[in-house]
């Protein structure tokens, strides 16, 4: 049932015309399990194949065809369950969910209804301000995907592509624990991150391998839950957030004008940024669920669960905690770095034996900025983790200044050369020779005697002018700390 134990937080409320409202959000995510073959047949699952080329007679619902469970899909569901800190049910049951549609060949979807493979779990959201929030996971169950109806290929007919029919999905249902669109976004980001870490779903919302249904209701703070609406099949995190913003505002307006919310299923129109009614509760199907007699109850061997447990990678939360503890990173930086396993790995290589804070700044700052501009993922970074580490080493041992390092970084991006090569070939090595810097200072001070006297009579701000002049004279290579020290000494004398 739609209840929630989450404590009301004032800052999550939204303002209506007549007062404040609380938004209650629960999400149902359909995540395609990364498997070579379908949940109950041997047909392939690759994305983008020609229509109806990846269909077995089982998927097409031919007479006498029988489902056989894909063990890899079962293992991945267990793995995902463990990744969500959830209860793994040793016995689960596949049911038939009955409804007629042209892209549902058997006239029923094989799903899990009363006894899912994974029970209650939880997930920790990393909010943009660095805080965290816990959201309950109600359940995870395995089910088949349906095919795809193509209504725009022919003036009077619908075409059906069954490539997707029978593909393994995990439906992951959250508790109604979220209160803002931002939290819903953070939930999806975190879930996607965990699924990718585990390798159980590629989380690719554009290709439809992760889709989201949003349950939204509003209420006055402290009052019982309102009637919810379900927004079906939203296919990006941004759209989920938009849909929730719109839908909650809409519900508030209806209620404030004295209306009531009808329980219904709605669709998000991403072009117009609105939701519209698809069908009401009265029109809802009676799915006539019953246990699929073609499949025995799914009994998990405890050894399988242990084997999967032993194969679990370090997950984002664990990694984040470790980054905070070992590298003294801020929760925010740690959260950003662990979102993708490849980023976290990249960072760890850069940070190894180096100043971790500096490494984090370079990865999340300059590198992310550059990759963003180039439209590349971190796997395709033109600067390797080792190369970036090399640049940081040159800063650390005072070979170059932080400022020069930015130029070196840009050159590394362009040329693919190492920081050391660039520094050498362009003569960017910083001057730490006291004599050379002193000589340069003397020249500058001699050329600007008027300014020297102004400084000495109290115009402190001119200090920066002298620094700038010396830097200009040394092409920026003077060690800044040394320069400051020597300059201060000379001006003071």
């Amino acid at each position, binding site marked *: 049932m739609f209840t929630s134990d989450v404590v009301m937080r004032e800052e999550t409320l939204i303002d209506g015309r007549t007062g404040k409202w609380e938004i209650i959000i629960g999400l149902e995510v359909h995540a395609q399990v990364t498997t070579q073959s379908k949940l109950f047949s041997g047909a392939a699952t690759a994305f983008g194949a020609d229509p109806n080329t990846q269909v077995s*007679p089982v998927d*097409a619902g*031919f*007479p*006498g065809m029988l489902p056989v469970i894909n063990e890899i899909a079962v293992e991945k569901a267990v793995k995902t369950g463990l990744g969500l800190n959830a209860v793994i049910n040793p016995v689960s049951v596949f049911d038939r969910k009955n409804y007629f549609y042209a892209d549902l*060949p058997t006239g029923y979807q094989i799903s899990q209804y009363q006894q899912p493979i994974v029970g209650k779990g939880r997930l920790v959201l990393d909010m943009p301000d660095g805080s965290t929030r816990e959201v309950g996971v109600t359940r995870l169950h395995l089910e088949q995907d349906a095919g795809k109806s193509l209504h725009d290929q022919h003036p009077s007919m619908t075409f059906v592509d069954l490539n997707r029919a029978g593909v393994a999905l995990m439906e992951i249902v959250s508790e109604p624990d979220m209160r803002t669109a931002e939290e819903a976004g953070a939930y999806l980001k975190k879930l996607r991150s965990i699924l990718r870490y585990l390798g159980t779903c590629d989380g690719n919302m554009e290709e439809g391998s992760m889709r989201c249904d949003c349950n939204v209701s509003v209420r006055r703070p402290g009052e019982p839950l309102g009637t919810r609406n379900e927004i079906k099949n939203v296919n990006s995190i941004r759209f989920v957030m938009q849909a929730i913003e719109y839908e909650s505002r809409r519900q508030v307006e209806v209620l404030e004008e004295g209306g009531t919310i009808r329980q219904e299923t709605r669709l998000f129109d991403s072009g117009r940024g609105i939701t519209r009614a698809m069908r009401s509760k009265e029109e809802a199907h009676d799915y006539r669920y019953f246990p699929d*007699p*073609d499949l*025995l109850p799914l009994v998990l061997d405890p050894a399988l669960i242990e084997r999967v447990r032993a194969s679990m990678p370090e997950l984002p939360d664990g990694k984040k905690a470790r980054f905070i503890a070992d590298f003294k990173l801020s929760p925010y930086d740690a959260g950003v770095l662990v979102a993708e396993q490849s980023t976290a790995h990249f960072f760890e290589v850069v940070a190894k034996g180096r100043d971790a804070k500096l490494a984090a700044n370079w990865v999340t700052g300059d590198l992310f900025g550059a990759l963003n501009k180039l439209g590349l993922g971190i796997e395709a970074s033109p600067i390797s983790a080792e190369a970036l580490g090399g640049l940081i080493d040159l800063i650390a041992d005072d070979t170059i200044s932080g400022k020069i390092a930015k130029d070196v970084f840009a050159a590394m991006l362009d040329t693919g050369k190492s920081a050391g090569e660039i520094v050498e070939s362009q003569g960017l090595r910083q001057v730490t020779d006291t004599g050379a810097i002193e000589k340069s200072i003397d020249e500058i001070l001699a050329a600007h005697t008027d300014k020297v006297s102004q400084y000495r009579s109290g115009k402190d701000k001119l200090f920066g002018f002298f620094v700038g002049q010396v830097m200009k004279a040394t092409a920026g290579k003077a060690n800044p700390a040394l320069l400051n020290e020597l300059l201060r000494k000379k001006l003071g004398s």
Partner: protein
Amino acid sequence: MSDFTDLTLATARAGLAARKFSAVELTQAHVSAIERNRGLNAFITETPDKALAMAKASDERLARGEGGVLEGLPIAIKDLFCTKDILTTAASHILDGFKPPYESTITQKLWDAGANCLGKLNLDEFAMGSSNVTSHYGPVINPWTKAGDNRQLVPGGSSGGSAASVAARLALAATGTDTGGSIRQPAGFCGIVGLKPTYGRCSRWGVVAFASSLDQAGPMTRTVEDAAIMLGVMAGHDPKDSTSAPMAVPDFRAALTGDIRGLRVGIPKEYRVDGMPAEIEALWQQGIDWLKDAGAVPVEISLPMTKHALPTYYIIAPAEASANLSRYDGVRFGLRVPGASLDEMYENTRAAGFGAEVKRRVLIGAYVLSAGYYDAYYLKAQRLRTLIARDFDQAFEKCDVILTPTAPSAAFAIGEKMDDPLAMYLNDVFTVPVNLAGLPGMSVPAGLTADGLPLGLQIIGRAFDEETMIRAAGVLEAAAGFTAKPGRA
């Protein structure tokens, strides 16, 4: 040589091995018999060319000293088994023109053992019926007639074409399927042997589903030995059927030792139902005596939940069927009757494609699964099913096999009981509990009614103990000495 069609699987195989005749001769004799007896309407599709081509190939293998257990033996297939590139109808209009791109596991095993395919046999539509009158292709005529009464009788059902063809000597043997008695009851009505194995013994892959948790394929033959031989070929674990049992297949034929000394034969006291003809009662007693004479020990047992078996069955089977038959929607294969919308196309197709009995069961099934009724009907039926199975478990603590009549009546006239589905459903009163409990059961022809119609006795075995059941059946068969032949063949 018309005697060819009086052979059994065992004697024909021996004759072929001894090169007394060829597989082509044997098959040709059956092809001719089928042509002569089209009036029985036993076949939906005849495949004489295929049968003769397969026979020719069998002769070549036999000449090389090779050949499987069923090499060169012409058999026929209930049209519920998918056969590659051969029309497969389930006797329904809705499968018009459907030629499967695959071969059922069981028929593949039969062909691999050397059997030859004479054709596809008529049945009740989607195996729903006990008299073979629900077929879109018309009723099958029982080759037997009452003495002095030329009215056409039903062969029983749903495997009516299978029973009629074997009884009328149109095939040496046939496959059947049994969901609530569909092998055993027609075997009883037609005076042949029909064996329903333990649920999970034979693969259901490629067999058009009626009620998945009850359906089980089995052999229909003229002797117990033939049933044992054919079951040996049909049985075995199939990874493509998740409900198929991963168990080794015993040598069923070797179970026919004739020795049942000390075997405890359970006689369920609740099976003396009201209105059962006295001659069936008497035959049952005769059966008990035959087994006792052979050294078995009759034991009275109680199966108190049996009285709930029919209502339980008529909830579970339609529930499963209502979902199993959803795939016949006009979208991908078979009949399509156009409509202005998708829903209208569904309605038109299914209205035209399904017969009255199928529609009745789909509606019952959808009803018992619907919101608000599920607990009262489906869930309660599942609980009763568990209790019925427990009845048998407890009974088998006291006995090794159970003996009952196969059906409460002999074959009746076509058209009788048609206006009362409940009376029709009563035909299965002795067979349905066996399916609900997943046990093996077989019907053995044991005698004739006063007006000359065959009657069968049913032997029920423990789960996966077909061997003991077959051994007892062999003794019963020998004692009964059933040699009568039907009049119409």
